[in-house]
């Protein structure tokens, strides 16, 4: 029983990190109508950048990693949006072109990692060693740190979306791009900022999860698919749905990994996704996926 609750706590923490990753993905679609298939590669890049800074070359303090990596990821996202996505915006088959372009970018970025860092797995050490015992439950400090970081980022994001002018324009564009344009919101700038934030969130997820999973050049694909499943299960473009789905699937992952092994996680996720879609074709809180 005690073990079960510890597994639940782990699942909850993974859930909130998955939320960060998935919310970046869904934001990108909700605001900019971009389904970013290179998202997994951004994840990989975030993790490898953290590795370069904390372990490989600079060996800086762990907490500096966030301060250095996140702005780099943001700028990278803006650059990708400007160079790759923006020229495609006036195409009639925008969705399809973006899909192919980001797939190509993903393969390019992954193999760039492979060429630079080689195929061997790398790992980031835990932020913090040791564990804490509260009321009979043993929780590692690492998990606590992960939870706090992820929570801070999630709350910052929520405040940003609710309170700042940029956040409000993002919501406006998500609701009605044409209307937003009429009231003078610079659409393309909002798209670029959204893409940057999305990339940054993905990078944050990469840094937080890297100590838990090994890093390989192609490892990002798993997280792209995880983000996809969470986002579909929650309802594409719905932040609330993403939140619930992240926790549901994070806890499921912890339980399945504990009982059957990590190899079974993805099949179980897929089964749950299928079950949800059979009952609610647009996901838990989705509206966009529904036809007509």
């Amino acid at each position, binding site marked *: 029983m005690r073990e079960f609750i510890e597994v639940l706590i782990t699942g909850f923490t993974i859930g909130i990190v998955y939320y960060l990753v998935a919310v970046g993905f869904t934001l990108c679609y909700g605001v900019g109508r971009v*389904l970013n*298939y290179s998202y997994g590669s951004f994840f990989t890049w975030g993790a490898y950048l953290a590795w370069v800074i904390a372990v490989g070359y600079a060996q800086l303090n762990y907490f500096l990693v966030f301060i250095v990596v996140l702005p780099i990821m943001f700028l990278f996202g803006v650059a990708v949006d400007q160079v*790759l996505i923006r*020229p*495609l915006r006036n*195409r*009639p*088959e925008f*969705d*399809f*072109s973006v*899909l*192919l*372009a980001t*797939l*190509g*970018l*993903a*393969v*390019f*970025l*992954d*193999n*760039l990692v*492979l*060429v630079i860092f080689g195929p061997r797995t790398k790992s980031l050490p835990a932020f913090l060693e040791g564990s804490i015992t509260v009321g009979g439950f043993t929780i590692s400090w690492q998990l606590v740190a992960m939870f706090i970081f992820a929570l801070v980022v999630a709350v910052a994001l929520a405040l940003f979306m609710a309170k700042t002018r940029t956040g409000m324009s993002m919501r406006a564009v998500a609701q009605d791009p044409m209307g937003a344009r009429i009231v003078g919101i610079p659409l393309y700038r909002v798209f670029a900022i959204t893409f940057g934030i999305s990339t940054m969130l993905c990078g944050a997820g990469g840094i937080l999860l890297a100590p838990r999973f090994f890093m390989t050049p*192609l490892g990002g*694909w*798993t997280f*792209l*698919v995880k983000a*996809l*499943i969470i*986002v*579909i299960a929650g309802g*594409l473009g719905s932040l609330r749905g993403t939140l619930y789905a992240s926790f549901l699937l994070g806890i499921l992952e912890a339980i399945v990994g504990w009982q059957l092994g990590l*190899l*079974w996680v*993805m*099949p179980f*996720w*897929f089964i749950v*996704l*299928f079950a949800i*879609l*059979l009952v609610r*074709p*647009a996901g838990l809180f989705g509206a*966009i*996926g*529904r*036809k007509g």
Partner: protein
Amino acid sequence: MSDQMTGPDLRTGETSSKGGARRPAQLPGDRPKALRLNRQTGTMIGLFVVLALLPLALGDSNYTMRLLVISMIWGGVAIAWDLLLGYAGIFNLGQIGFFAIGAYTSAMMSENLGINPWWGLAAGAVTGAIVAVLLGLPSLRLAGIYIALLTLAFYEVLAPLLTVGQAIGTGGKRGISPVTPYSIGGYEFSGGQQIPWYYLALGLFLVCLIVGYFAINSRFGTSFIALHDSESFAQSLGISRYKVSLLIVGLSGLLTGMMGAFYAHYTGVVSPRVLGLEVFIYLVIMVLLGGIGKFPGPAIGAFIIIFVSDWLRSFDRWRLLIFGALVVIIVMLAPQGIMGAVDSVRDAVRRRFVQTPLGDGPDGDGPEGPAAGEAQAKETES
């Protein structure tokens, strides 16, 4: 009214090259053109003749023959995939999943149950079609972009599923090896003699070409044009997007599963590696380079990519980097691929040098895009 929907239809070849589903529909009174010589049939026949005669020129170059066989396998898959991407507008990213399922079905039947591999071809095709339809049942009810998400999830989950599926005989991580080759009478196919493999592959490739051609130039193709031009009008004629999509997804799965089955026995090994990213991006770039919705361009893309990839072998890790960049560049600069370029050159030449009689010009004078739907609507009203 029903004539319009069932006749052999597309003014194939005379496209304005905006994507497959945008071809102008047939006007009442046009001659049946399904069997006319045009870009599609011309390229098909040319391809077939060259491939059928090529072994005479190559002599006993087993290596080149092997590359050609692999090209034909992927060429067939590329055509099947393009039916969905370019013609039906279904963003299916799980095509290689159907391929792997066809391969596994055939290999498992011959290795675990001892059934003659020839049956595996049919079984692989049927299983491919069944899985495709099962995947289509929930996903085709959703908006286009959801299909891409769901099928990608399917594709990514399949490799772990096959790995944990050791209990039902998938062979786990290492897959199934060796897979028995085909044999006719007393003769057994072997790697040392490529000619029998080659002509078998050519036969299957031809099946893909012909099925693809008739799918595009038949009720299927017309239905998708009608749905694209005016969805509500098409539906009022009794075309259900869901049903035609499901049918074409099944057909595409059928061809892909068949090629997968052949692949298993040809290479003698199936493993989850076939679901790797490398194979996926190869297929993407084949279709893209050949021209999406530009039948039979994707097959030509397959030949080019297989040979270029072999030529780039010494670049090792840089090869996929190059291909990834190439995908981006093609999407940005030449989204119509090679066949699109051929089309626009031909159209330009025609416009300049050939005086076309009214109503049969390269483009601009036939009804096109949404206008075709309106024209049809008017015809039926009057």
